[in-house]
C-alpha cells in the first residue's frame, strides 16, 4: 500500500532530491567553516544557511541564530530575556504550542515570571485581547504566527504595533508559517521570529533558529567555544556567537540552506496558493458529511483539524493509517489549550499538506475520511 503522508506540520516528507543530494555532498569533504579550520577548499554551509535564512525573512545575516529546533529557539529567547528581566509579566496565547507554554509555566513555578494567556475566538487571538492583558510590568509577549492545530494565521503585525507602543518585546513563533507564507520580519515588526528547519523549509530534524532584531535584548544562557575571540573567557557579545556555541549541525544546516533555496525556487506565493487550493478542496469534501466537524474551515496555512462524530481521533487515525495508508496526526498536537476549547480536550485528527502533496492524494484522503464518516454514521444510526 503506497503511503500518503499528510503529517507535514509535524515534519515534512518527502524532501526535495537536491536536499538529499546536499546531505550526502556535505559529508564528502571535511568541514570548512570560519574559526575552526585552516581549510578553505569547500563550502561553509553554516554561513550559506545563514544568508539563505536571512534572505527568506528579509533580515540581516547577523540577526539569524541557529539552534536545534523551534522549541530550542523559544527556550533560548525566553530564558535569555528573563535573565535580564527577572520577575516580569508576560502575555502568551491559548493557541500556543507547549514549546511556549511549558517554558512559561516552568519559569512561573520558579517564581521568575508571571503571565496571562490571551484567549481566542473563531481561531484568532484578537490584538485587543492581547492589549487588555498588558500590565505595567509586562515586558514580553509571545504568540504563534499560525496555530499548529487550526492553521489560522494570526494578525501579528497588529499585535506588534500595540506592543511596540509600550516597548514590549515581541516573540513570534513561526514554526508553522516559515516556508508556507511570505515572512518579512521588518514588516511584521517583531523583536524575535522563531523558525524550524524540518517542516515547510524542507530541511531535516535537528535544525532551527531565530531572527533577533536587537541582540542586547536577551542574555546568552549557553556558553562555550565559538571559534572566535578565544582568549576571552566570557561569551562573545558579537552576533551570532553570543547565542551559538559548540559545533553546529553542519550537515543539517547544509540541508536547510538547500531546502530554503528549493522553497524560493518554487516561490513561497505559489506554494501557499497550492496549499490553500488543496485545503479548500478538503474542506469542501468534508462538508459533504454531516458528522465531520472541521475545527477551522478557513486556515491560512495547509493545516486542517477535524473529528468524526462518535469516533475518537485515535480510531480515525488508526483506520486512515492501516486501511488506506494515509498518515495523519491525532491527539492534542502539543497545544492543549486549543483543544480545551475546540473538542473538550479529547484531541483531533490533523491533516497537514506540503508543497509535494498532490491533488490525487487529497482526493484519496477526502474519499477515505468520507468513507469512515459514512460508516460511523451507520453505526450511530443503528445504535
Amino acid at each position, binding site marked *: 500500500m503506497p503511503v500518503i503522508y499528510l503529517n507535514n506540520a509535524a515534519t515534512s516528507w518527502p524532501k526535495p532530491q537536491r536536499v538529499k543530494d546536499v546531505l550526502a555532498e556535505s559529508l564528502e569533504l571535511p568541514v570548512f567553516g570560519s574559526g575552526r579550520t585552516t581549510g578553505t577548499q569547500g563550502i561553509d554551509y553554516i554561513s550559506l544557511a545563514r544568508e539563505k535564512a536571512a534572505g527568506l525573512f528579509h533580515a540581516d545575516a547577523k540577526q539569524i541564530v541557529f539552534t536545534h529546533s523551534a522549541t530550542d529557539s523559544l527556550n533560548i529567547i525566553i530564558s535569555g530575556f528573563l535573565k535580564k528581566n527577572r520577575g516580569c509579566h508576560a502575555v502568551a496565547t491559548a493557541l500556543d504550542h507547549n514549546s511556549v507554554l511549558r517554558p512559561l509555566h516552568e519559569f512561573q513555578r520558579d517564581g521568575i515570571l508571571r503571565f496571562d494567556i490571551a484567549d481566542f475566538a473563531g481561531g484568532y487571538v484578537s490584538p485587543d485581547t492581547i492589549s487588555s492583558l498588558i500590565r505595567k510590568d509586562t515586558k514580553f509577549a509571545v504568540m504563534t504566527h499560525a496555530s499548529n492545530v487550526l492553521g489560522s494565521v494570526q494578525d501579528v503585525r497588529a499585535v506588534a504595533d500595540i506592543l511596540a507602543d509600550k516597548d514590549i518585546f515581541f516573540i513570534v513563533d513561526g514554526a508553522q508559517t516559515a516556508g508556507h507564507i511570505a515572512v518579512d520580519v521588518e514588516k511584521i515588526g517583531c523583536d524575535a521570529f522563531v523558525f524550524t528547519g524540518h517542516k515547510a523549509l524542507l530541511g531535516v530534524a535537528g535544525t532551527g533558529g531565530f531572527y533577533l532584531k536587537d541582540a542586547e535584548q536577551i542574555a546568552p544562557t549557553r556558553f562555550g567555544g565559538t571559534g572566535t575571540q578565544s582568549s576571552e573567557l566570557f561569551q562573545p557579545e558579537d552576533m551570532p556567537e553570543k547565542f551559538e556555541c559548540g559545533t553546529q549541525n553542519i550537515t543539517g544546516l547544509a540541508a536547510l540552506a538547500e531546502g530554503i533555496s528549493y522553497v524560493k525556487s518554487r516561490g513561497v506565493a505559489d506554494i501557499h496558493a497550492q496549499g490553500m487550493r488543496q485545503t479548500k478542496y478538503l474542506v469542501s469534501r468534508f462538508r459533504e458529511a454531516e458528522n465531520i466537524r472541521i475545527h477551522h474551515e478557513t486556515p491560512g496555512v495547509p493545516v486542517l483539524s477535524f473529528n468524526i462524530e462518535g469516533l475518537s481521533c485515535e480510531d480515525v487515525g488508526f483506520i486512515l493509517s492501516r486501511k488506506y495508508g494515509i498518515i495523519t496526526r491525532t491527539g492534542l498536537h502539543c497545544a492543549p489549550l486549543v483543544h480545551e476549547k475546540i473538542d473538550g480536550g479529547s*484531541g483531533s485528527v490533523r491533516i497537514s499538506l506540503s508543497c509535494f502533496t498532490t491533488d490525487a492524494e487529497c482526493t484519496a484522503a477526502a474519499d477515505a475520511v468520507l468513507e469512515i464518516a459514512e*460508516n460511523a454514521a451507520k453505526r450511530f444510526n443503528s445504535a
Partner: protein
Amino acid sequence: MRLKGSIQHKSCADGSYMKEYQLDEPLSKEFFEYLKYFGRVTALEEMGDGYYNFEKPNWFSIKGFAGDTTVEVRFKRETMEITTDFLYLLFSSFKEGADITALKEKEKFRQKRIAELLK
C-alpha cells in the same frame, strides 16, 4: 489465539505505550464479542472486514481489523506491569466455551492492585 510477539512499539502523545503484536491467526468479530466481557467494544463492521476497538480504562485498549494478523495495543503506562500478562491471557484463552468466570476472577485480582496503584 496467541500473541507471537511485539513487532514495534512507541510512546504515544497521550502518555500511553503502544505495542503492535503479531498474532498466530487472524482477528475476528467473535474475538471482540468475547472481549465485551472485560470492557467496552466499539465497531465499524462495514469498514473493510470490520474495525474493532476494545477499551479497558486504566488497563489497555486493543485496536484492529478483522482478518488482520496484527493488533495494536495501547497500555496505560503506570499499570502496564500488572496488565500485560492479562492481555496475553485474554488472547490465549479465547476459544469456544472459554472459562469466563475464571478469567473474571483473575481480572478482579489485578483490578484491586491497579486501584491501589492509582490511589
